[in-house]
């Protein structure tokens, strides 16, 4: 009976899950692209293919975001919940945007990561994407089991600090190396952008926590 009464809400919930699924696909394409880049260099065929895939998923996420907006303003949810969900989606949107930005940076600037920095860069990417996965779990918790939210937030916070630590190390190593100074600046920018993924995930995580706290009396 409740499913009939709250039909639009259920539709909205499904759209949010679809949005999260699209973000996950975008994240997978991003990882594949980076792996292709780290293993095979910039202009390999796979890299370009994964850029297109990442863009496609990011674009699909935007479309779902628009659908969610339209549905929410057709008398679904109370204004506070609408505002919270819109804010959350906008914050989440910044993550696939960053994926695309990083890949375009590598493509347009023809960046290659010197072998010496590859292991730590891979570690930075892995931990950053773990933060994104945890954010997805946190969104699921917000929509289903809110008791897990703080637990996920604490882990994301720890991982974000670890990312900052790895980022600093890589940058220090880059400037200690003898590579071309221009290349050093380009790599620094790239590493900072990758490090930014965990920062954004952390921001989304804190926002989810606030959304949950607002529903406590």
């Amino acid at each position, binding site marked *: 009976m*409740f499913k009939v*009464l*709250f039909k639009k*809400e259920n539709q*909205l*919930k499904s759209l949010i899950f679809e949005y999260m699924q699209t973000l996950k696909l975008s994240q997978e394409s991003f990882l594949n692209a980076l792996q292709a880049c780290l293993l095979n260099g910039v202009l390999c065929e796979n890299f370009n293919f994964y850029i297109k895939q990442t863009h496609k998923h990011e674009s699909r996420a935007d479309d779902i975001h628009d659908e969610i907006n339209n549905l929410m303003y057709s*008398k679904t*949810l*109370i*204004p*506070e*919940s609408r505002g*919270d*969900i819109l804010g959350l989606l906008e914050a989440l949107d910044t993550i696939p945007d960053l994926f695309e930005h990083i890949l375009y940076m590598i493509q347009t600037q023809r960046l290659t990561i010197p072998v010496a920095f590859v292991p730590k860069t891979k570690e930075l990417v892995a931990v950053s994407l773990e933060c994104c996965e945890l954010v997805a779990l946190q969104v699921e*918790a*917000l*929509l*289903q*089991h*809110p*008791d897990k939210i703080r637990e996920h937030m604490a882990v994301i916070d720890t991982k974000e600090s670890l990312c900052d630590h790895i980022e600093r190390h890589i940058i220090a190593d880059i400037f200690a190396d003898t590579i071309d100074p221009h290349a050093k600046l380009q790599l620094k920018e790239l590493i900072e952008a990758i490090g930014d993924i965990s920062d954004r995930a952390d921001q989304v995580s804190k926002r989810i926590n606030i*959304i*949950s706290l*607002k*529903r*406590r*009396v």
Partner: protein
Amino acid sequence: MLPLLGGLFLGWSLGANDAANIFGTAVTSRMIRFWKAAVLAAVFVIAGAIISGQAGINTLKGLTQLTLEQAVISSVAAALTVTAMTVVGLPVSTSQSMVGAIIGIGIINQQVNYAGLGKVAACWVGTPLGALVIALVLYHILGYGYNRLNLNLFQSDAVIRTLMVLAGMYGAYALGANNVANVIAVFVGAGMIDADTAAGIGGGSIALGILTFSRPVMETVGKKLVRLDPYSALIVVLAVGATIHFYSLVGVPVSSSQAVIGAVLGAGLVRGVNTVRRKTLYHILAGWLLTPLVACCLTLVIHFAIHLRYTP
């Protein structure tokens, strides 16, 4: 039927104004469509008036003895007071306006039931205070249960929306039960109609006001209440309903607008937030003192004007 027109107009304006205190938040925030809210409010106002409206009618008709002419004068004076105060922009209570008008008649007749008047005045003071206390208590008790449920975003949203509509229905019932006396009690006192018929007619006129003219007021008042968080808004609506329901059991018509202010203050106190500006409080105080006074004076003036005789 003609003598009833003043009372019916008063009922219509009461419905148009006071439904906002009950369903304004839910309608403005689009939790419920206006027409659904209006129909629910109209149905429950009539139900409240018919089932529980007699106590208030007995209190008001007992304040003084009225003739039919005096009943018409008092209802017209009360309706004019409500209109004048609304035009001036002061918060106005139909209950205070009606009681002021009846006191005017009592002065003319040199017969005022001071014990009954004392009870009514005490309830006026008790309305915002009572709503404040009820809001404080409800906030904590319901909050405890709400927290224990550990609801997710969608569940929390659904619970608040459902409770808001149920609270609105309860509030509308209480409004009908409490305020029908303002509309029609003087005509019962004058012996024109019996209490049961009066409750039906009075409830009907309030319902008509809700159905025809409450939308703009709902949108204005509702926007002010929407600034509260959804849980606090729910508590305010529930506290208003409970407060006016309590006074309808006591048999004293009170102001739902004053109850709203008390409840908003109460919800704000829990969170340590100043939800009502000092200027608003002064306005309410001014309206509180002026409404019965103006209605009483208007009654005396109308009575005097009607009984003027030209002597060449």
